């Protein structure tokens, strides 16, 4: 499982949904698609850009929303490296239904009370539910018991909304590389814990970055909730993935 990704310069070709694209060896299918303006949905993998402050792309491979078919086999696009002549299926009815199923499972597993969540309107999980037109999950709500950690002066950590994507574990560190978040326990007891000592001293920018990197509303900046009015939030008017060209990649490509 690759977590940070380095690429080389050898160019190869593959097709995604019948469209022939160029990619560099060492890139993942997700990165190649992104560079070519093809949307593959993600919740855990994150492309480094100015806004999130990442130095390189991360691909924890935990959420499986980016599942594609590669030469007929289902693979996670964010952890599968490209190869010459790969035939990738992405935007198909079958795969989109599978992705919708994953979104539904995430909704029933945690406690996602959208109307009372600070991230509502800018939440990637909610936006995927909108994209796949989830009106109601087909599974039973688990109403799992999860704890909220509000000890830190700048951050609120709400495990009810956490989808265990591992973004915060990989991406949010102090300047000298100490991780602020970590995994604890296993299986259905898995959870994220905060290093309270370190989190207590983070800067405003880091707090902002932490909230931005979290795809859901698990990491919330205190005293900044609900500051964007309805109608101006990230996914109020356009579905997630409707920006056809990734601005960051487009810049790098030229």
């Amino acid at each position, binding site marked *: 499982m690759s977590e940070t990704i380095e690429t080389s310069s050898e160019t190869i070709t593959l097709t995604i949904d019948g469209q022939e694209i160029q990619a560099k060896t060492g890139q993942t299918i997700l990165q190649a698609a992104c560079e070519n303006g093809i949307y593959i949905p993600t919740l855990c993998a994150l492309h480094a850009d100015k806004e999130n402050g990442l130095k390189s792309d991360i691909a924890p491979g935990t959420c499986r929303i980016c599942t594609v078919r590669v030469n007929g086999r289902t693979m996670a696009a964010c952890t599968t490296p490209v190869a010459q002549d790969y035939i990738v299926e992405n935007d198909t009815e079958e795969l989109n239904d599978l992705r919708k199923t994953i979104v539904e499972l995430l*909704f029933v597993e945690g*406690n996602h*009370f*959208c*109307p*009372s*969540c600070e991230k*509502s*309107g800018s939440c990637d999980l*909610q936006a995927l*539910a*909108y994209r796949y*037109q989830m*009106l*109601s*999950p087909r599974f*039973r*709500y688990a*109403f*799992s*018991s*999860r704890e909220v950690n509000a000890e830190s002066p700048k951050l609120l950590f709400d495990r009810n909304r956490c989808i265990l994507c591992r973004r915060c574990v990989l991406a949010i560190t102090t300047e000298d590389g100490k991780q602020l978040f970590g995994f604890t326990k296993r299986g259905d007891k898995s959870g994220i814990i905060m290093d309270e000592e370190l989190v207590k001293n983070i800067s405003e920018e880091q707090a902002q970055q932490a909230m931005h990197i979290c795809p859901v509303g698990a990491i919330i900046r205190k005293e900044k909730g609900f500051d964007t009015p*309805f109608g101006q939030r990230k996914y*109020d*008017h*356009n*579905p997630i993935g409707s920006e056809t060209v990734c601005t960051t990649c487009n810049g790098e490509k030229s």
Partner: protein
Amino acid sequence: MKKPIIATASLAGCFGCHMSFLDIDERILDLVELVHWGKSPINDIKTFEQDCDIALIEGGCCNDEHIHTLRDFRKHCRILVAVGECAIMGGLPAMRNNIPIQECLEEAYLNSPSTAQANPEQILPNDAELPALLDKVYPCHEIVKMDYFLPGCPPRADLIYGALTALVTGQEAKLPYEVIKFD
């Protein structure tokens, strides 16, 4: 063709969805042309005088009366529509689902600042007339079969109107991205 009959109910909800329904404004006059009104808090008709075609259900089930009402609606209505987050997933009332019911009652009637002094005999509401609280708040579709779901808190008036007219006229609902939201 006979006009379809519409009913509505509010279970463990805040009437916000009904208010949003009234936000269809003057389109309610068009709706009156299309449908008859049956049992609903809007017209204060309290019994099913005849079976209904479509019922809009607001709120989830948090006590035995809600379950009784919902089952009654299922018996008397051809199509049940879950309207709003509470009907779909329990919503705000379901935030108590991880707190034992005894603890909820004690917090509300014995320990809160407004009741600690006012309830010296430490009485929890126990009149037989009162509906009994359920162990947790249930989404409607976990009690009876629901046919359609209109998310939102509240669902946008355009969503309610669009879905309702589509159901009544038998045409496919044309719902833009902006009208289906969970908040």
